[in-house]
């Protein structure tokens, strides 16, 4: 039955409800018209914090599973929310009232843009992330996303934000978009250039590796190819980038090498050897091939396993060249540094529990 099908005719305009999804869509249509066609129709001010954030919360609820939003909500709704976000971004972005709201909004916005094939839209959450004036808030946000099993669909995005914080920060610690490495001025002002903060971020950075290497053969292959491959590759690419002389010195990357070799490189190598050994052409049982089909198996191996394998080769070669092959030669973190890193992780864990 339609809401307009009243048994008792309404006596007052207040008795006629205006459907809120329709209201949102109309607002988005106006915003789009105002920007693209200079329609001149007045648009209310909708600052991202607190108003737009409340709209996201109202229409999407708290986002625990990005795929539920990306694939479960009508595309028109997601498009409208993102369009309104872009409209609101034309004004300066206010400081969020609290970090939890900031985190929830970024996650919801990332979910809304996850299905977009256009990078120009997928990069919108990054602008929100980097707009927060507190480096610690940004650090906690990125860490909490990377550390959360349920937010795997946002890991690749979070790694991209981390990369931008590290690579593109200026001397004031502000992330500048569209800059190159040569624009970086190392500064004590950004915690993203602090080696202990970086060490606190390393385990969650490679959470995707832990996820794909913890399962059975076929499950690992499926997760790597279907969901986690891009996050694994992004994490490895970032690590490889940071092996350049300026960053590895600044971030004291040498101290992370034992972790990387034992928790990332070796498990992935073993996994890929297991994949290869499973191939019927290598005398294997063909478990993966019989689960997904020969063609899919070949495509997955070429596009994902092969590409990640090449990146691993590059990283391993550079590590060996720069740091040698014996981890016992490398200086680890001091007790003081480990204590600091532990404090940082505790702060983030308190934030993640909220």
């Amino acid at each position, binding site marked *: 039955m339609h809401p307009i099908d009243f048994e008792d005719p309404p006596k007052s305009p207040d008795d006629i409800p205006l459907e809120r999804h329709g209201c949102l869509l109309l607002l*988005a249509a*106006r915003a*789009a018209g105002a920007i693209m066609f200079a329609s001149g129709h007045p648009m209310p001010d909708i600052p991202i914090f607190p108003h737009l954030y409340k709209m996201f919360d109202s229409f999407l609820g708290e986002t625990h599973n990005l795929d539920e939003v990306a694939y479960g909500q009508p*595309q028109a709704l997601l*498009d409208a929310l993102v369009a309104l976000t872009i409209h609101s971004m034309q004004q300066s972005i206010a400081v969020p009232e609290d970090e939890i709201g900031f985190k929830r909004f970024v996650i919801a916005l990332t979910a809304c843009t996850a299905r977009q094939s256009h990078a*120009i839209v997928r990069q919108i959450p990054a602008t929100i992330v980097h707009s927060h004036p507190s480096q610690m808030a940004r650090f906690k946000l990125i860490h909490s996303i990377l550390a959360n099993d349920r937010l795997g669909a946002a890991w690749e995005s979070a790694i991209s934000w981390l990369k931008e914080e590290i690579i593109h920060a200026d001397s004031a610690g502000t992330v500048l978009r569209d800059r190159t490495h040569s624009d970086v001025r190392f500064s004590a002002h950004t915690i993203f250039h602090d080696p202990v903060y970086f060490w606190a971020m390393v385990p969650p950075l490679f959470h995707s590796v832990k996820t794909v290497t913890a399962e059975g053969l076929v499950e690992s292959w499926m997760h790597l190819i279907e969901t986690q491959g891009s996050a694994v590759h992004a994490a490895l690419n970032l690590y490889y980038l940071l092996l350049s002389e300026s960053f590895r010195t600044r971030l004291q990357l040498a101290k992370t090498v034992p972790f990387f070799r034992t928790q990332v490189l070796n498990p992935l190598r073993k996994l890929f050897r297991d994949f290869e050994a499973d191939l019927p052409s290598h005398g294997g049982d063909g478990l993966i091939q019989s689960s997904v089909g020969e063609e899919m198996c070949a495509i997955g191996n070429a596009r994902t396993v092969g590409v990640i394998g090449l990146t691993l080769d590059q990283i391993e070669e550079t590590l060996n060249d720069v740091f040698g092959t014996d981890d016992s030669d490398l200086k680890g973190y001091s007790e003081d540094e480990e204590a600091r890193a532990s404090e940082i992780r505790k702060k983030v864990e308190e934030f993640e529990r909220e």
Partner: protein
Amino acid sequence: MNPDDPLVQALPPATDYLTYCTILEYQLTRDRLPLLHQLLQDERLTTNIGWDLVKLLLPMLPASTECLHDVARLGNPREVILRVADALLQLNSEIDNFEPGKEEEVPSEGPEPLPAHILQFNCLVAMLSVLHSRIQTKSPSRFIATSLHAALEAYMSMPCDETTLSFLEFLRDLSPNKRPAPTPRAPSESSVLRVAEKSAPDPEAEVASPSPAAENETALVHKFLQFALLELLKSYLLHFSSPTDPGMSWAVRIQEHLHPSLRMPDQSQTEAYSSTEELKERDMIMGTIVVC
């Protein structure tokens, strides 16, 4: 007019109105529609039988368009409006039995033949526009609620550019702040029906004087129209919201507009929406909705 034609010979007072309606059911063919159109210029006749002709004439669209317009202009508006609403609600159930590809496509005056159910919807809402302009009542909101309910139920089963524009035209006609019709800009606008001929006054007119109750009625009408517009917008956007359809692509187009250097030349949605007729029409319709 052929005086020997059964429809002429049986005209009241030769028969009563009920008998005449029965004769029409058996004798009315497409060939006789021009004759019926002439006969329906008799306001007294149309007032008495018009409400009964809606169901009979609807399946004969578009040939019966003029006759249906006569019914709207000259029939008893309070009775005809109920029949039109009924027809809209039944239009919905007919669509449930509709099998794409099997319905006979009736040629329309537009560039492409429209399916019968769309022709019927467009005609019925055009009739509602005329009928509502004729009804003089202290409680217009009650009539509007009935009409909007029926029109929305039918529309939601067949949202497309043609029905959307027809519905928007209807909402525009109902608006207390009615503005002149915009200049047609898109092919689908040719399917919107507008009745230019003069209508008869409401035989049961109630005179409303300025009062708080009258102001409340105006506010109620306004709110009903807002409600209907939002429901229409939702249905319209959802009907092309699928994995393979670009929808309105607002986000990507706004970004391309604000950052033209980031536009991918061979994948630009801005280009697609300015060069593809179907997508251009969506923008045009959204523009109409926003100013409604």
